[in-house]
């Protein structure tokens, strides 16, 4: 649905409210943000977080998760490494961050 703008008439720009060019879309819910775009067929990720703050990581068993139907990939420190050259580790390796 398109909605007509009712823009106030302005003779000059200074001291006059200038409505946003996409204001009508925003107030009517028609504006499309990234999260509103359809993503048919997109893979969905899920993050497993540690139940223990700053816990020691002994092992992470993902065998049951990987065995679920439709699972494409599982990634952790063992798969992608700590991230050489990055200034922050992508995944915790020894202790939970």
């Amino acid at each position, binding site marked *: *649905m398109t*909605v007509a703008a009712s823009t106030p008439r302005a003779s000059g720009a200074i001291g006059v409210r200038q*409505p*946003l060019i996409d204001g*009508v879309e925003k*107030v*009517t*819910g028609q*504006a499309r943000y990234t*999260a509103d775009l359809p993503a048919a067929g997109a893979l969905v990720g899920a993050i497993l977080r540690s139940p223990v703050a700053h816990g020691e990581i002994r092992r992470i068993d993902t065998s049951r998760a990987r065995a679920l139907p439709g699972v494409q990939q599982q990634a952790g420190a063992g798969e992608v490494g700590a991230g050489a050259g990055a200034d922050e580790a992508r995944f915790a390796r020894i202790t939970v961050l």
Partner: protein
Amino acid sequence: VAKRILSLTVNGRRREDAVADHTLLLDYLREALQLTGTKRGCDGGECGACTVLIDGAPQLACITLAARCEGRHVETVEALATDGRMSRLQAAFHEKLGTQCGYCTPGMIMAAEALLRGTPTPTEAEIRAALSGNLCRCTGYVKIIESVQAAVDAGAREAAR
């Protein structure tokens, strides 16, 4: 996953849809019905971006199960404009710049809509209280309050005519 047939009214239209028991109202609206005007902000009931009306009362769709809306009337921001005309609140938010990035705007407008239906001429304190569950990270609320006040004034002018 257990599903059920959900019967409800969305934006004036009766619907029956199969939804999983754990489906959130927000996901039902955005994904099943493509009503993406209702925004996912914090996803935890803190920011108000997902505010919709259930039987006229403002509710947070991100912490409401779709199944809880059986037999109810759900209204989203998409329902407010009629025949291509913005509602008074929508026009006021547009003209008074109550919207900037716009992400909080649908929730703000729905919360204000609920207020004005019950209290057509609220005080500024009542407007602030009604919008106290809606966070904005752009405009700083002054223009949002002004926008609601402008809609109130426009309604009063129309009633006096």
